[in-house]
């Protein structure tokens, strides 16, 4: 027996999915505020494109991480497809692939940050690096959160239980990917 709040749907969207849209809307304001602030500073400070600023980020590493997140998003949507077909074990396996994509992303980020910090590009170096570490750090924390949720869902989904949750975590994951799609040109390409 489920509570009424879980089962009624005034908007025509199932409650769980509507809740995820609300989460995403609030995340738009969180990340959007940060990115908008960065954009204002970037446009008001021509030096942000210089060698001690965005010029020191590695485009290839950023591009590789974009590739990793796009691939993990593809795995997430294929997991949703399997869940929709009622194939829990396949959906669970694809959720693991998605989480592995997240892990790869974090490892690359760890390598990249170690290299940058060792070269002196720390969070207090200048305003660009402040934005860089805060934006990429908040994004990375969302990657970690998504991976944890996927690992929690794995057991139930494998047993063909609560399959609708595959779509819910998938939508969250695609949003995390979407944020990176904007972070990549802002932090790695606009030099």
């Amino acid at each position, binding site marked *: 027996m*489920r509570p009424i709040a*879980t*089962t009624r*749907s005034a*908007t*025509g*969207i*199932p409650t*769980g*999915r509507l809740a995820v*849209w609300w989460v*995403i*809307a609030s995340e*738009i*304001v969180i990340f*959007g*505020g940060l990115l*908008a*602030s960065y954009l*204002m*500073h970037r446009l*008001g*400070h*021509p*030096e942000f494109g*210089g*060698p*001690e*600023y965005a*010029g020191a980020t*590695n*485009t*290839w590493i950023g591009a590789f991480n974009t*590739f990793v997140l*796009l691939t993990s*998003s593809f795995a*997430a*949507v*294929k997991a949703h*497809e399997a*869940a*929709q*077909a*009622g194939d829990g074990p396949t959906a669970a396996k694809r959720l693991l692939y998605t989480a592995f994509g997240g892990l790869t992303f974090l490892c690359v980020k760890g390598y990249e940050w170690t290299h940058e910090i060792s070269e002196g590009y720390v969070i207090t170096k*200048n305003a660009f690096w402040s934005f860089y570490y805060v934006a990429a750090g908040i994004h990375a924390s969302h990657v970690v959160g998504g991976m944890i949720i996927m690992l929690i869902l794995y057991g139930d989904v494998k047993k063909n*239980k609560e*399959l*609708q949750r*595959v779509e819910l975590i*998938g939508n969250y994951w*695609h*949003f995390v*990917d*979407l944020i990176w799609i*904007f972070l*990549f*040109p802002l932090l790695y*390409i*606009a*030099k």
Partner: protein
Amino acid sequence: MSEHAHAHDHKGHGGHGDGGHGDHADHPSYFKTYITLLGLLAVSVAGPMFGHPWLTLITAFGIAVVKAYLVASRFMHLNIEKKIASYLLLAALALLLLFYAGVSPDVMKHRGNNWENMAAQDEVERAEAAASTAPAHHHE
């Protein structure tokens, strides 16, 4: 109807009546979308290599918007979701635009009629002087 049941309602027939996502059979191929996204990524990386700032702007940010649209519509299924979800997200974006419009003049400009942001001006001058004397040290 429980959400669990909702998920299974899609199986095989793609009903839309109870708030479901419609028929995925006529939905664009996920694999084709993925390959398109990778192609767009390659273009956005290649853009700056031509050295034209306007081309970089288009290939970096224009393509980011296209990629975001593809992910939102085809992977998040916003194109077949109930319209209220899109309105919800657009409302958040509208608040963001309001924030940008209100704050950006004070950040992007370093002086106005009755004020001057000396710290920002000094930083621009310091950084430009440092960039003109120091050897370039940046990754591709």
